[in-house]
């Protein structure tokens, strides 16, 4: 109850101060005419927004410098470093490269630059994991539960910058290898899902009739079952078939998730396809006597790239989260292969130590953070691409 009263009074106070701010701004004669007009046409919510921003800045300042809360400081430092890095990347892209790429960067929002930069970093780390990781993903050392930071006094070890897990495996190496496994498998799965979904979606849109009915109703039936539970069910069966062959389990997992996710791709491809199929240029191509494959790959597909690409980014996130979730449940990527979902699960009990030893609690958060960061980055890029593709329609 107190919290509610507290929240309401704060909201009221911010609202009133915002109103006063706007009113004062309108009364004062500013030296610049633009500022005068800006205040005159300022909606109330913008005034409140300014005050809210100031309050927020103070809160950040307070927790950062006065309370010195560890996690909060990390978050702020991370935010500032990443912003600075992506701004540098953005500025770099605007001035270096071909004319086309420079123009692309000039029109790109900072968030998209951040996303692209993060994805590039992930890709490089994953592809060159074998070279970049200090140790192997399965290598076991005698020091277990080393805390991150590399500070011997605080329970760290300079050999293991991010610490080790309960079995004594280097977490930095496992994070890097985990990227390779999780992201690599997610990427393959998404590509497979798109191959299946887009092919059937465009076929349904072009052929229509009974083919469309059969495939669409089948997809509807598959979508009626909750995806994670369906995946669990199928994976359990697949695990029984695969026996002890771990590579086979991974292969089954890729196929199962791809098929389940292709239903969503199918829906999108079909909807996009239907919009394109009614165009006169498709009619012209049909009347020319073109074959189905020409219609789909040469006439429809080039016009569907933008929405499909945007969906690819989004789907990639979902697949990636599904794999992490399945691994967390113990039936995804099999140990000893490193993977972020499994790492979160294995280290999850350390989260209980957050109150006494923030460093200990950071162990599972690193893998979780890696997942979160990639998801945010991909979504930034997807948002930007969606914006681009909607702009093209005008």
């Amino acid at each position, binding site marked *: 109850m107190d919290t509610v009263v507290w929240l309401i009074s704060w909201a009221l106070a911010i609202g009133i101060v915002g109103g006063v701010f706007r009113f004062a701004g309108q009364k004062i004669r500013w030296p610049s005419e633009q500022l005068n*007009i800006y205040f005159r046409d300022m909606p109330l919510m913008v005034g409140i927004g300014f005050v809210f921003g100031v309050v927020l800045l103070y809160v950040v300042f307070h927790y950062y410098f006065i309370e010195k809360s560890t996690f909060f400081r990390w978050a702020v430092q991370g935010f500032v470093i990443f912003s600075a890095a992506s701004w540098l990347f953005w500025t770099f892209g605007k001035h270096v490269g071909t004319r086309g790429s420079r123009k692309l960067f000039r029109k790109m929002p900072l968030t998209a630059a951040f996303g692209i930069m993060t994805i590039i970093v992930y890709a490089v780390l994953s592809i060159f994991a074998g070279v970049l990781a200090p140790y192997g993903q399965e290598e076991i050392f005698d020091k277990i539960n080393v805390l991150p930071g590399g500070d011997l006094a605080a329970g760290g070890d300079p050999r293991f910058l991010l610490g080790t897990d309960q079995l004594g495996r280097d977490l930095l190496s496992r994070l890097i290898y985990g990227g390779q496994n999780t992201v690599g498998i997610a990427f393959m799965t998404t590509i497979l899902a798109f191959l299946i979904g887009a092919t059937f979606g465009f076929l349904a849109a072009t052929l229509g009739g009974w083919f469309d009915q059969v495939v669409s109703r089948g997809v509807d039936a598959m979508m009626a079952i909750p995806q994670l539970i369906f995946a669990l069910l199928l994976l359990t069966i697949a695990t029984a078939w695969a026996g002890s062959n771990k590579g086979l389990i991974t292969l089954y997992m890729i196929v199962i998730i791809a098929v389940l996710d292709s239903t969503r791709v199918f829906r999108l491809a079909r909807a996009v396809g239907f919009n394109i199929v009614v165009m*006169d240029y498709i*009619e012209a191509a049909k*009347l*020319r*006597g*073109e074959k189905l494959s020409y219609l789909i790959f040469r006439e429809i597909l080039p016009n569907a790239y933008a929405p499909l690409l945007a969906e690819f980014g989004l789907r990639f996130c979902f697949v990636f989260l599904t794999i992490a979730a399945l691994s967390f449940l113990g039936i995804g990527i099999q140990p000893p292969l490193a993977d972020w979902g499994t790492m979160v699960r294995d280290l999850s009990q350390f989260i209980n130590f957050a109150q006494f030893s923030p460093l200990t609690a950071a162990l599972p958060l690193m893998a979780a953070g890696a997942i979160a960061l990639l998801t945010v980055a991909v979504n930034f890029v997807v948002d930007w691409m969606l914006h681009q593709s909607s702009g093209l329609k005008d």
Partner: protein
Amino acid sequence: MKTEQPLVKIRNIFIQGRSDEDWLPIINGIDLDLNRGEVLGLIGESGAGKSTLGLAAMGFARDGCRIASGTVEFDGIDLIAADAATKRSLLGRRIAYVAQSAAASFNPAHKIINQHTEAPIQHGVSGRSESEKDAIELYRRLRLPNPDEIGFRYPHQVSGGQLQRAMTAMAMSCRPDLIIFDEPTTALDVTTQIEVLAAIRDIVQQFDTAAIYITHDLAVVAQMADRIKVLLKGDQVEESDTRSMLDDPKQDYTKSLWAVRSFTREEKPLASEDELPVVRVRNVTASYGTVPVLHDVSFDVHASRTVAVVGESGSGKSTVARCITGLLKPSEGVIEFDGTPLPADYRQRSVEQLKQVQMIYQMADTALNPRKRIREIIGRPVEFYLGLRGKEKTERVAELLDQIELDPDQFMGRLPSELSGGQKQRIGIARALAADPKFIICDEVTSALDQLVAEGILKLLARLQDSLGLAYMFITHDLATVRAIADEVVVMKDGRVVEAGGKTDMFTPPHHDYTNLLLSSVPEMDPDWLTELLDQRGVDNIGDAAIERMEDA
């Protein structure tokens, strides 16, 4: 109120539009004065900046545009410097706007009358019941059918012409001092257009409203405006009152605009009886599902001749084209090509048969794949039908581009989005020519284009016909086009051919009632034309009302 002061006073206005990263000029320093109760016509080609100038009179610039300098005064109020609240109190209340496409401008989720009463209620001019009553009164004055009831329908339940009139009524709801009409009849059939024109003119006079009437149709502006301002690429060409502008245009550009409708072709002599027609449509009856659309349609198209199929939207003229191309199977009747019947379904036709019948579409925007370059768009049929590849193909494409008067070096590598409307339509023609056909269906090819551009396309088609001996089937609702290019005319109404014959016969009375209505509804350049026509036919005997009457009889 000071009556000598103009209602709208625009001085030396510059408007710029954003293109990639630069600001390009749209309007370069134009002055505009509009007195109370006066109608000013703004004309020019697309891209001349007429809509932008019209919106600027409201102190408004579209997204991506900005008013760079200059002043806009409305009744002494500086609209550019005015704050948001002042503008809000003016727009809708004292200044109203009627958009080109009423169908796209009404919110489909609300009843028409609820959208009508929104402005009066918001501005506190009148209450709901009062403004509903007023709406019904306005509908009556605009001669909408069932004025008591029509407002309670949703926008999709009324026809395009009625919707356009409902929108005019909506603009009138607060009795504004100024209405801006942005091409309100461009998307309508001639018979519907005339109703809307009569209604708009009437109501503007009744309430003594000032109006800016934007259009590219000269004959329309001649009926509506007291004064005409001609724009070209953001500059004013000339301005004077309607009559002197029509009788004595000063500038060359204006003269060329006035001369557009002069392009005509002599009717070629009728083909002899025993000559085999290229395409023969024989007793075709067709339906969409269970809805019948064509009843026993027959006509012939001979080589080197143009058959114009005219009629309103919904008369079945495009359906005939669909039957000929094989997209719609007729339930009875056959299409013959060079004396042999074509399979009813295009999928069963041979490549050679498909090659002979080509089509040019109305909307070049949707007819060209936006992701393909001109080289591929024209090159594909060349490759597909004639089997040319590599260098031969490129040469053929260049030759075709030469034929449609576009420079191959410049246009080969472009995307459709990098072309103007007229150029896109030319590419559409080239694609049809690439197949080397005998017969081309032109489906409203000029109706989306400006008159000057449209004339260029018609001349091109005529020249191609003469040099290649092509047979055209020309679907259109614009009788000026028919007069320009046709040899024979087929008039369709409700899926039936009501009259058919040579062009000269068709344009000399006596006509079938419907043909007569179509012919008399085509606006003429004479500023008294509408008044005289209304005197002659009576206000209730034009447009849809006249058609209904015909059906009752």
